[in-house]
């Protein structure tokens, strides 16, 4: 009897709860999304109104509608450019990821190697890749190869520095535990250091993936197209020369969206990989 009355009380409390499920969604929408959406609409409206009011020419500052119009009419040019840039930056990113992680593991597996080579890695990192890009064009020829190489070089160092930091961040007691079980250097690397470094590696990859798009576009500025079709960077250069400013804006926005998309994708992969164990990827439970 008494348990029953408790149960009915409970259901009553639940139904008395003022917010229905829909209400909750609305609260969340209001709290998280509404502000940014209003800000965006305001921004776009001002952008639309000001050039019209001040009589600014579209080739100086195109209105959002001009940009949209350019994107639609020149879609047959924009879409292939996006595809090319995507391919270049994905290859550049994959190269920075694999080579970066591999080199870090190699360096971290030998103190002598790490001590003697790491300082140079840091110095190399400070060289602006853009400054040496023409050399890369001389070595790899204009076009695709040089662009991918530049994209790779820009994304490479964040991977190395993060991975090395992670591989050296192993908890001291855990290291001793492995020593006590007489684990070999490679077992320690494989079963302790690399998994411990995962959050650091993922952080490095997140930085690297956006940089690889920057690298691809910069690469296209410098290395041209070398006979092939051009990507977004090339399209931007051409649009600038022809004063097709609305199309230039469309290319720029496409590049930005690409960067955001790539970042979200890598973040998702990182989240899935770290989900089962690492706190940085965990939501705080109540």
């Amino acid at each position: 009897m008494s348990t029953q009355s408790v149960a009915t009380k409970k259901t009553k409390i639940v139904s008395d709860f003022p917010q229905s499920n829909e209400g909750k969604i609305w609260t969340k929408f209001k709290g998280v999304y509404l502000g940014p959406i209003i800000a965006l609409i305001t921004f776009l409206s001002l952008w639309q109104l000001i050039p019209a009011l001040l009589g600014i020419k579209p080739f100086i500052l195109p209105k959002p509608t001009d940009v949209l119009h350019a994107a639609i009419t020149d879609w047959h040019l924009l879409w292939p450019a996006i595809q090319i840039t995507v391919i270049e930056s994905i290859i550049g990113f994959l190269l920075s990821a694999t080579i970066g992680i591999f080199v870090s593991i190699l360096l971290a597996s030998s103190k002598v190697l790490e001590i003697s080579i790491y300082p140079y890695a840091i110095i190399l990192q400070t060289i602006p890749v853009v400054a040496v890009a023409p050399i890369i064009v001389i070595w790899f020829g204009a076009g695709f190869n040089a662009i991918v190489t530049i994209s790779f070089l820009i994304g490479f160092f964040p991977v190395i520095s993060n991975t090395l930091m992670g591989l050296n961040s192993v908890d001291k007691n855990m290291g001793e535990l492995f020593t006590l079980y007489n684990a070999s250097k490679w077992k320690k690397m494989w079963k302790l250091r690399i998994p411990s470094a995962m959050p650091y590696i993922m952080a490095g990859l997140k930085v690297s993936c956006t940089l690889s798009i920057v690298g691809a576009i910069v690469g296209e500025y410098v290395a041209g197209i070398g006979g092939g079709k051009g990507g977004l960077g090339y399209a931007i250069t051409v649009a600038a020369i022809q004063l097709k400013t609305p199309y230039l804006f469309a290319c720029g926005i496409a590049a930005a969206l690409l960067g955001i998309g790539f970042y979200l994708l890598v973040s998702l992969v990182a989240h899935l990989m770290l989900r089962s164990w690492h706190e940085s990827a965990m939501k705080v439970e109540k």
Partner: protein
Amino acid sequence: MSTNPNEVVSFQNVSKVYNTGTIALSQFDLTITEGEFISFLGPSGCGKSTALRMVAGLSEATSGHVQVFGKTPKEIIQKTNDIAFVFQDANLLPWRTVLDNVLLPLELRGSTKKSHKEYAIEVLEMVGLKDYLYAYPRELSGGMKMRVSIARALAAKPKMLLMDEPFAALDEITRQTLQVDLLNIWQKEKTTILFVTHNVYEAVFLSSRIAVMSSRPGKLSSIINVNLPFPRKLQVRTDKTFTDYVDIAAHSLENSSIRRELG
């Protein structure tokens, strides 16, 4: 060589000076026999961990000798599964399940036989975690993590368990249940246990012998044989003999520090 065939650990005139100049241990002499539950009791910084780490080969004596099963600690670590270490923190790998954490020592020693997995499950059952084989460490409470850590230590069937303040970070109630369970495991497995603590009650409740230490420099100040019968239940804490032993241990701790203060 050793005169006593049951001798498992011997410290012979062992001193340890860290390269910072700290004298962590000075002329430490102690013999531990098979099957003992011996506690190292002393204030923080008196060299308890240093002594324990020497037995595990994680720290080397500046002078004197440490022998484990008649060999050097390094040899024991490299060639046998005879000793296992439990740290104050559970030190579990967060990306491995409870069962995989317990299997780690066997994996590192290069044996992944099916029988080992069965034994690991058996050990987890012994520490009361049968229902958590596939849970991840973050899902466990502090006490449960420590149980996994103890299970991992037992998984390779060591002859000796070294424990460095394993229960110090736990709340009193959890600590007491773990103490009782540890005694049961000790009696069942017949291992030798070297247990570091700064808690007088814990030392008296668990140990068959207590090595009381004093600090600056770290020294052995006295040995107390605790003649309370096993198995011990929690209620033993209210017995007169138990409280007498607590008094004795507390006094020798005090005396060793007074002696130090008088110079």
